[in-house]
């Protein structure tokens, strides 16, 4: 699981090394690190890290250890890898009903309707879906389409 972890380090030599140790100790694999020296405030420098931890528990332990070292945590949140998916529905599907159906994990980020009053209306959806849930989200949409007697065109 990837996390965005932003910490505030005292602007002194050796602080960064000291802060990285709990991350390594708790099984974190650092994917990127940005030492934002151009943005110091009150003698602290923000450091943004993307870290891959085996679980949220490992992140919590790391934060506890960092706090014990006196490192302030500015932000810690999971980075969800999402995939953009285009889908087309043919048939009288109401986008409001579709949105209300609450398809798990799916965010509708764009849509376009063609021939909306026809029984073969076309609805193009631009969706944002967590990458690991794409298949199940499309299965959910397929079920809704079937119930509405609409045809779902999904990407290969």
């Amino acid at each position: 699981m990837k996390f965005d972890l932003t910490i505030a380090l005292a602007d002194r030599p050796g602080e960064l090394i000291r802060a990285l140790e709990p991350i390594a100790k708790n099984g974190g694999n650092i994917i990127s690190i940005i030492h934002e020296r151009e943005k110091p405030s009150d003698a602290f420098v923000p450091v943004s890290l993307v870290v891959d931890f085996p679980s949220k528990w490992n992140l919590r332990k790391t934060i506890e250890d960092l706090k014990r070292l006196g490192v302030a945590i500015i932000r810690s949140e999971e980075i969800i890898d999402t995939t953009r998916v285009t889908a087309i529905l043919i048939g009288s599907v109401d986008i409001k009903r579709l949105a209300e159906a609450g398809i798990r994990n799916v965010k509708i980020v764009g849509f376009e309707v063609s021939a909306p009053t026809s029984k073969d209306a076309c609805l193009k959806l631009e969706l944002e879906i967590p990458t690991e849930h794409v298949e199940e989200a499309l299965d959910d949409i397929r079920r809704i389409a079937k119930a509405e007697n609409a045809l779902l065109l999904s990407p290969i």
Partner: protein
Amino acid sequence: MKVILVGFGFIGRGLVKTFHEKLDKIRILDREFKLVGVSDSRGYLYDEDGLDLEKLADVKRLSEYPNEYREGGSAEELIEKGNADLMVETTPTNIKNGEPGLTFMRKALSEGIHVVTSNKGPLVVAFRDLTMLAEKNGCHLLYEGTVAGAVPIFSLVRECLQGDKIRRISGILNGTTNYILSRMYFEGTSFELALKEAQERGITERDSSYDVDGIDAACKVVILANALMNRNVKFEDVERTGIRRITQEAVSLAKKSNFAIKLVGTIDRRIEVAPKLVPINHPLCVHGTLNAVYIETDLAKELTLVGYGAGKETVSAVLNDVLTVMKRTQVENHKSWKRSRA
């Protein structure tokens, strides 16, 4: 090698012509090659010394061949008396019960005759039975022409991907629907008009639902799944959606997002034939009557084969299967000759 041909339709006649045109090449492989019998639905021709390929290539009906045409004689009779090494079976596809091809293939294999076929029906209905029967009787059963016509998918996997595990196959497996969808994509025509054009060009089946409702593509998916992915799939297991509901509006919306709508057969978690959005720069995005097969394996990763899936090009696949059987039997004969000397 003595060969009999069962079925004298479009593919059967094309094969006879090709045998005639490429006889020198075939005889380099096997000096004894001869076509000793040919049957159609009404009777058969038989000559144990080999039929005259030049004369046979000139006739449209077997009864026009200048020799005794045994009217009323059956293909089964020909299989029994032909003393053939190989039967090429090109009767029309029947996906309900595989007949009459299924009976002919069972009979030939039971009698130890190798079989090459371009007929999907028997393989859709009884793939496992036929492959087991072939194995039990020491026969080769090859069927390259059944899926994507001239595209050598089974030969490629058999010869060149022997150590690979196939994870997923997707493909455009029906040229007619690809033609219709291509016309809708490029010319902006309606489905109904594009279907009419396809019918006028003579590229649809007599019953167009066979193409447009995805029946033909589903048959091919069954054969691919069973032959290449060791599944035990029946026709009813394929989730099937045709292209009748594809509107010009849907094609345009897809096009605006750089997709083309294609009828795609897929074998992975789901086994299905359905219209899909194919990115226009994806290797599967071929147009007109072309077929394309996209294979994903553990070692070679992705491979794409593109070619013509029906018509006279299919003869290429059938001829290659015939030559493959010839080569294999020569190797087997050589081995048994060495054993007999030892």
